[in-house]
């Protein structure tokens, strides 16, 4: 079954901390793994994405680590700021040769305290 399991459900860190959000999948035929940030009342906004042939990708303060053998990937937010307080969703796209749907994790509500 195509599922993406995300943890933790919620996370509280102090400003400057490094929150880590984890996702795991079961189906090996995924070819694209994005992370989305969502603020209340807004749509998900693409933060960073990785493909399975890469083990790590950094964009600014955001880093994805990808472990293909363990079927796990995680988001690290360096030097977190109160403005990073949002809900974060991991997602995965089943491989099909086209631009298939995204399957989302359940989301992690992050609060960064000043």
């Amino acid at each position, binding site marked *: 079954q195509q599922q993406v399991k995300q943890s933790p459900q919620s996370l509280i860190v102090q400003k400057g901390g490094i929150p880590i959000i984890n996702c795991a999948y079961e189906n090996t035929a995924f070819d694209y793994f994005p992370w989305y940030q969502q603020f209340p009342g807004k*749509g998900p906004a693409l933060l960073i994405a990785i493909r399975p042939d890469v083990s790590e990708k950094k964009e600014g303060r955001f880093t994805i680590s990808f472990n293909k053998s363990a079927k796990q990937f995680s988001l690290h937010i360096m030097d977190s700021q109160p403005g990073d307080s949002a809900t974060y*969703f991991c997602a995965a796209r089943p491989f099909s040769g086209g*631009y298939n*749907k995204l399957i989302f994790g359940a*989301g992690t509500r992050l609060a960064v305290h000043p």
Partner: protein
Amino acid sequence: EPEVTQTPSHQVTQMGQEVILRCVPISNHLYFYWYRQILGQKVEFLVSFYNNEISEKSEIFDDQFSVERPDGSNFTLKIRSTKLEDSAMYFCASTTGGGYTFGSGTRLTVV
């Protein structure tokens, strides 16, 4: 930066009524999607659309739902006879090979 535009931002409707949610995807995108998000829950796939036809739909997307691209720029989701459980945020998304861009959503409230 190009955006996916959705209207209305909020719609309240009576149970049993038809609603049409509208989206203008990014102009050079070829693949279009509708997702929904019940309050506090995850984003769920409804339907994907490519080359003027549905390419995939979820079990949520039953006969009460339909999609259309009537004029080459708009992409609509119609719910024929709304139920209380259709209350959710509905997001349109589009892509053409890069990231998937989501709109800000329509909050549908069925009373």
